[in-house]
């Protein structure tokens, strides 16, 4: 099959999730990532959408995960921490750059709209 280079290789929500993982830093497990999207994205996201997206990103190899034991309130279920893998980072960067180029020269117009 012929490979095409998409202008935006990541979906909007995937970009949001990757950025939230980066923002959460070392403590990027499910709840923390959700919290980042909430606070910084200023948007309430469905929990299911986040976990499905994390699974998908993992399956595509854009993020890596490791599990560690969490506090007892979790009922013995480990926390799963995510980090963005280099290829995920590269795609994110490309997407953001594409957005940036599209935005060039439009700051004022956007600001007042």
């Amino acid at each position, binding site marked *: 099959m012929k490979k095409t280079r998409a202008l935006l290789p990541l979906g909007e929500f995937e970009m949001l999730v990757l950025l939230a993982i980066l923002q959460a830093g070392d403590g990027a497990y*499910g709840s923390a990532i959700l919290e980042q999207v909430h606070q910084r994205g200023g948007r309430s996201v469905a*929990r299911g959408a986040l976990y*499905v997206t994390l*699974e998908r990103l993992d399956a595509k190899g854009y993020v890596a995960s490791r599990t560690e034991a969490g506090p007892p309130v979790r009922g013995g*279920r480990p*926390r799963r921490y995510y980090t963005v893998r280099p290829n995920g980072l590269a795609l994110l960067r490309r997407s953001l750059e594409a957005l940036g180029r599209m935005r060039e020269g439009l700051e004022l117009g956007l600001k007042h709209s």
Partner: protein
Amino acid sequence: MTRPPRAAAWLLERVLPRGARDAAIGDLNEEFAAVVRDAGSAPARRWYWIQTFSLIRAFAAEGRRRPAALGEISARPGGDTMTQDLRYALRALRRSPAFTLIAISVLAIGIGATSAIFSFVDGVLLRPLPYREPDRIVFLWERPPGGSRNVISTLNYLDWQQQNQVFESISAGTSASMTMAANGEVSQVRASRVSAGYFRVYGVATTLGRAFSPGEDQPGKNNVVVLSYRFWQQRFGGDPGIVGRTIALDREPCVVIGVLPAGSPFDRGSSQLWRPLAFGPGELTRDYHWLRAIARLKPGITLEAARANMDAIAARISRDYPASNKDWGITIDRLPDVLVDPTLRRSLEVLLAGVGLLLVLGCTNLANLALARGTAREREVVVCAALGASRGRIVRQFLTESVLLSAAGGALGLASGYMMMRGLQLLLPSYYLPREAVIAMDWRAFAFAAGLAIGTGLLFGLAPAFHAGRVDLAGSMRASSRTATADRSRRRLRDILVIAEIAVSCLLLAGATLLVRSFLQMRGVDVARDPDRLLTAGLLTPDSRFSHPDQARAFFRTVLERVQGIPGVTAAALTAGLPLEGWPDGMPLRFAESNVRGGAGFKSISPSYFNTLGLPLLRGRGLTDQDRKGTTPVIVVNDAFAKRYFENQDPLGKHVLIQEIVPGQRRLGPEIPWQIVGVVANERTNGLSPQGSRGVYSSIEQTPMYGLSLLLRASGDPSFLVAPLKAAIHEIDPEQPVTDIRTVAAIKDEFVAPDRLRTWLFGVFSAIALLLAAVGIYGVMSYSVAQRTHEIGVRAALGASRGRIVGLVIRHAALLTGVGLAIGMAAAIAATRWMAALLFGVQPRDPVSLGAAALLLATVSLVAAYVPARRAARIDPIHALRVD
């Protein structure tokens, strides 16, 4: 600490894919703790549920987005969930709607019929009795010399009541028809007169008011009455103020003191109301047996202890009153042991076995069908296996499909079973089941149907499932030719299934032919000559109606005269008991010449009875109008009586000493020397058997009775006589009720109704069985012919005639049928003995019935095989050889 909702956690556990599951649930739990802290536990639980659904929805949508194929099964070895199994099974079933439809209908009918029969078995045999500690309730009988159970005389009962040390309470009772005047209406009601302890023996309390108090069964205090709930609803519209109201029973005012609970056995029994049984002075006798007694054992008293105590009392009575009680004992039966008539018990067992066999047969057929379908799905299974699905995984997938089918069949079966149950209830005569039996489709029937559904799913799913698990990968991947090995094992499995089907059908068919033959024998029995021309009617009269027997004599003489004058009546008679309704009285007797003692049934009739009924006189003369009060007392005995007591002698002219029956009173008169003047053929009094039970007939002029039945022979359609009959009776006495107007044929119909129903049910079961067996044979033969097209083509090319090819196929079918029949017949011979109690005039190993069953089955299976055999014979060798 508040915990997350357990059901939500359980759901997540099942639905989320394993990789995401632990972390997602852990996160949820962790956040849940925070939400509890901030918002409280109830909102937190609500929040948890919302999050749960968000996760489930998202993952479900994600699952759908991916291409779903059989490969999916293998793609996640070990990581599969039940939902996945189900989803795939649903898809597979949707792809073959014909198979799905057939399977679900077969299962719905099978499970439905089995559940319907089960509801009767459960209601009659399995459910605990609706009384408090029913094991302590006993029935008491007198045991006459040479007999086992007899109704009880008043004074004997009173002695039992006073002298026993083993019963907590004891009660005597008798049923009666009473006239009730209430709400300005006069009607005939079915009543019981019972001792005050009656309801205490059963441990049943009233729902309204109270039951009888001790002492209310004394004369003068007994003007109270307890109603059944149903009667209260029907006749008094459930009037809440009923307690305290006065109604007139047989013209005596009685105060209603209580109403029994709704849905209790008393709603289903024959009595509608109960009055205390107070003995009048004329009823205090020891030789007139008329009462039934029940009692409740004291706690800790065993049946043996009770028997010992009562035996001692009986011995004492026998010693003190030898004239009436010499050699009489007492019989005690536990209520649970005698409640269900053995024939009814056996009927239910046989029907349940029959319907169970039918269900097994249905499953076998479905297994066969599923195996055939397995052939078509072989490629699919192979792909699946090649992609890495384990054998266990494939077996599980197939089983999920069959259990899913049977679950659907079970749900529909429950609905169809409910309808069948209601239908059967309508067809059964009301007296047939004990009043304690509750027939319902409740959780018990539901659990039974669910168990059946799962069981049948596994039963018919196993064979194809394991077969699918054993698919020969290398062989089947070669697309063009089928390998012999894989086919041979499947063919053997299908052969075995067909043999099983034939064996099971054979068993059912053998049972059905026996029942049908037995029923035909019953139908062939003539209770009377032209029984559908014989109209009967009851002339109920309360004991208080006549103050002297002569009044009764005169009244009934007038009745007979009037009725004989109705146009269209060719003969008319009066009798104390109609055919198949038993002997009205059973009397001890003694022979004057030999002093031999014995007993016999006793029936008062008008002299015209034998002629009206069509009962031939064998010897001597019948009764005549000259046999009246004051002339020599004479009786006609039946054939059974003559054979029993006068084996080689002439009974005519001999004298039998039987005590006088005093009408309207609970006592016997002095012994009367009855002279035997004739012998009449056995009337069908207690059953259809020609042996009959011994009995004697006396004229109503010499033995007057107060309650008699009328028997009219019509020259044409007897229904035209109903109105003139009622008019004639009401002309004589406008208050005389005329009840139960029906023909003798109708009496017999009702008598054999349970047998007819049982025979019909079994006949239907076996007809379905026959059809299933035929379908099974046909399927296997068609498949085999299709598989052997090539081989048959070669044979045809080499010159085999059509006849030989047909023979080839038929031989195979005949072999399967033969083996199946041999197994089925062996099973039938072993099992039908168990049905002996249900058969009339047919031996359980009746060769005609068994032979007919075998012949029918063999014919049907060979016809079913002939169609594919013809197809084989028409195979064109050129075409067949080109296929490969």
